[in-house]
């Protein structure tokens, strides 16, 4: 099946990966897991500082679903359990090295009913999400369908083919086989033209043609089989399918990953092979442009990533690091009146829109926060049957009835990212949707 989406946003940012980039290895010694990367997961720490762990050993479990675990991506010693205010767990750092603990072996259970716990205890369930609420799935739920996205249209995002050195077609096939056992409906794989794994069996292949957010699984679900109240669907990316397949085939967790280091402030964009949760500094070492400007190092893409310092660690989904200027060190005189072709905008009032050039935006909001004034602006970036302005207003007024009727169960914060980028009123749409989903879950549970 083919689906063409007209609405969306295509940005041309400087610092994209060269064609045929091949990964080089990074020397990382310390790795970390941030429980905040996994919405809905209430962390209970299972390890102490100095304790030895293996790759796949649980370091945290979910207070509400003890089966759901976050595991160490490497073997070594727990270096630190970093806590913030009111002892909230910020991250657990593991230093790679010798470990006396034997790696746990996860064997795929014979009975179908136990597969979800199998995924949960191996730490791979945490890499998946569920709709509604966009949270880590609850292994007790009945799953209507499973949706996999196998392409990424976010700015400067790498293709999933970079994982070909880690996961084989057999791994992906094993992953799909396992997923199709746990859902009542189908496993859907959304890809774009030129996808290298169309011969995989047991999944419905859907070809998408469209700009961001077409690669968001939420948009894909809305165009394939929308989520209704009461439905639970699980979502994941194609790399996680490979990880699951590898676990099924070898019994061991493989947390190797390939990270694209990209962005306007990167001298030579490149792929780096490392392990999930690596410290950022070794990955970007020697790749930054020499500049005395303040930089913003983003784990992920410019729409949904998390900004952190270089001595922090890469966040979920561990596939991309984007570096841009922070922009808090420039005085721009009357920027709102500028006709500079360097200004990036979706508005035709900026000449840059008419040149095919690469932009180097910084992290400034470029204006002040206002009430929603311009109408119909969000619709241009929402290729789904949702009225974004009205859903946002229903969330802001905490009107649960309207939220449900306007389709809050179908959306995740990332689906609003393109609209948030383009918004004249500079409203924090993703945060509003996140808070809305969290409140709704609290009210209804």
């Amino acid at each position: 099946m083919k689906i063409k989406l007209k609405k969306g946003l295509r940005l041309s940012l400087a610092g994209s990966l060269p064609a045929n980039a091949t990964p080089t290895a990074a020397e990382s010694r310390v790795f970390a897991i941030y429980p905040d990367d996994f919405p809905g997961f209430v962390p209970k720490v299972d390890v102490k500082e100095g304790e030895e762990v293996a790759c796949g050993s649980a370091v945290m479990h979910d207070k509400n679903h003890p089966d759901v675990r976050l595991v160490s991506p490497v073997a070594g010693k727990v270096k630190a359990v970093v806590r913030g205010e009111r002892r909230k767990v910020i991250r657990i750092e593991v230093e790679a090295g010798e470990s006396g603990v034997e790696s746990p072996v996860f064997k795929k259970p014979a009975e179908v009913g136990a597969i979800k716990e199998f995924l949960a205890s191996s730490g791979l369930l945490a890499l998946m999400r569920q709709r509604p609420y966009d949270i880590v799935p609850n292994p007790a739920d009945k799953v209507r369908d499973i949706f996999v996205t196998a392409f990424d249209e976010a700015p400067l995002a790498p293709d999933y083919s970079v994982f070909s050195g880690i996961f084989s077609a057999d791994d992906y096939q094993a992953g799909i086989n396992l997923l199709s056992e746990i859902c009542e409906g189908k496993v859907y794989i959304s890809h774009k033209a030129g996808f290298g794994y169309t011969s995989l069996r047991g999944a419905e292949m859907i070809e998408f043609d469209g700009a961001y957010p077409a690669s968001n699984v939420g948009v894909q679900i809305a165009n394939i089989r929308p989520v209704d109240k009461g439905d639970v669907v699980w979502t994941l990316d194609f790399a996680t399918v490979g990880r699951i397949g590898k676990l099924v085939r070898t019994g061991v967790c493989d947390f190797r990953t390939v990270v694209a280091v990209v962005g306007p402030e990167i001298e030579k964009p490149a792929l780096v092979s490392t392990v999930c949760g690596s410290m950022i500094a070794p990955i970007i070492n020697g790749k930054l442009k020499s500049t005395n400007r303040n930089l913003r190092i983003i784990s992920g893409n410019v729409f949904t990533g998390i900004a952190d310092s270089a001595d922090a660690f890469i966040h979920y989904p561990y596939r991309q690091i984007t570096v841009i200027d922070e922009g808090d060190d420039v005085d721009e005189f009357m920027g709102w009146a500028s006709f500079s072709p360097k200004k990036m905008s979706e508005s035709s009032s900026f000449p840059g829109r008419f040149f095919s050039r690469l932009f180097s935006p910084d992290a400034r909001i470029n204006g002040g926060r206002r009430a929603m004034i311009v109408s119909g602006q969000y619709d241009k970036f929402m290729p789904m049957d949702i009225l974004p302005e009205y859903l946002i207003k229903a969330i802001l007024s905490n009107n649960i009835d309207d939220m449900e009727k306007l389709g809050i169960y179908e959306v995740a914060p990332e689906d609003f990212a393109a609209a948030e980028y383009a918004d004249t009123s500079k409203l924090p749409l993703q945060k509003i949707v996140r808070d809305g989903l969290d409140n709704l879950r609290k009210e209804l549970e």
Partner: protein
Amino acid sequence: MSKLRNYLDKIKPNFEEGGKLQAFRSVYDGMETFLYTPKTTSAPSGAVHIHDSIDSKRTMIIVVCALLPCFLFGMYNTGYQHWLAAGATEFPFWELMIYGFLTILPRVAVAYIVGLGIEFTFAQIKKEEIQEGFLVTGILVPMICPAEIPLWMLAVAVAFAVIFAKEVFGGTGYNVLNVALVTRAFLFFAYPAQMSGDKVYVATNAPFGYGEALADGFSCATPLGQIATQSGPSIEFTGIGGNIISTWDAFIGLIPGSFGETSTLCILIGAIILLAAGIASWRIILSVIAGGLFMGWIANIFATPLYPASYVPAVDQLLLGGFAFAAVFMATDPVTAARTTTGKYIYGFLIGAIAIVIRTYNTGYPEGAMLAVLLMNCFAPLIDYCVVQANMRRRTNRLKAKTSQQ
């Protein structure tokens, strides 16, 4: 440039909490964000890291730029009508422009001083940033009134509209009615003698002593004002010199009328600017025109001497009075218009149709565009409500179909 920046940084503490001039914090904030792009950067997580360069300041200024052709033409036309009334046969361009400029300048100044003053005060009280909405309203108001509207009336009307049509609802982005039109409606109903009739639409004074004051009681009605005196079936409008006003004259706009709304040509230029910049909704503009043409055509079919305006050809209806101006600059105000795509078509069509209905069948009001827009402003939320309900129904029906299957 850095000198200015340093100066702003130096005086900033005075305006902060506890500073000597803290009562003017909103004024300082307004100036600072006007001169320098704020350095606020995106949140580190849960938000996009880059933002589009467009902001509310640029959006509003583009609307002001789109109004400039009409404004410049209004200056010329005010002078032109004045010269005509004085019986002149030569029309020196710059003198006409200067006369028009000097006539309108005090009105623009009063509108901005009163309106922005109120805006700054409310921003200060609510501890918010100053909003840009009044930049547009401030120039719109003098453009939709007779050029010589008394300043004190203008001040009272602007104050009333900004406070009661906007600030009480929560400020820019929350108002139900178009603020500029509320100003005009206030003037229209409170001081009808200065807002209608055949004596107000030609400037007769000598602003700041420039030009020649005409004798009191000079009269020439606008084309729409002349309708009541006609009986059809052929309608003829005359200008100051008794010349016949053709469709072409009405299109170019050298006719008596409110300051900025006579020239359909200049309004078209403004429309092109707004549409090219993607600020006004083409759906609304198009459907207002469609509604106007439709209703004008219906009126033509059932034309009767009882309502002489029903003889006016549909195309002329669009060119006369404030219709085109309302379609491009008033109906498209995104805050007070319908916000859903389908809603915009309905909203626009009804504005066009109702404007012509009021013009034609209510002989008390020669012009209906203002009332039509204000009326539909009130109904826009209802139209949107129906469109939103349809979206909700699709979802509930899907759910019902599913549960009935099981």
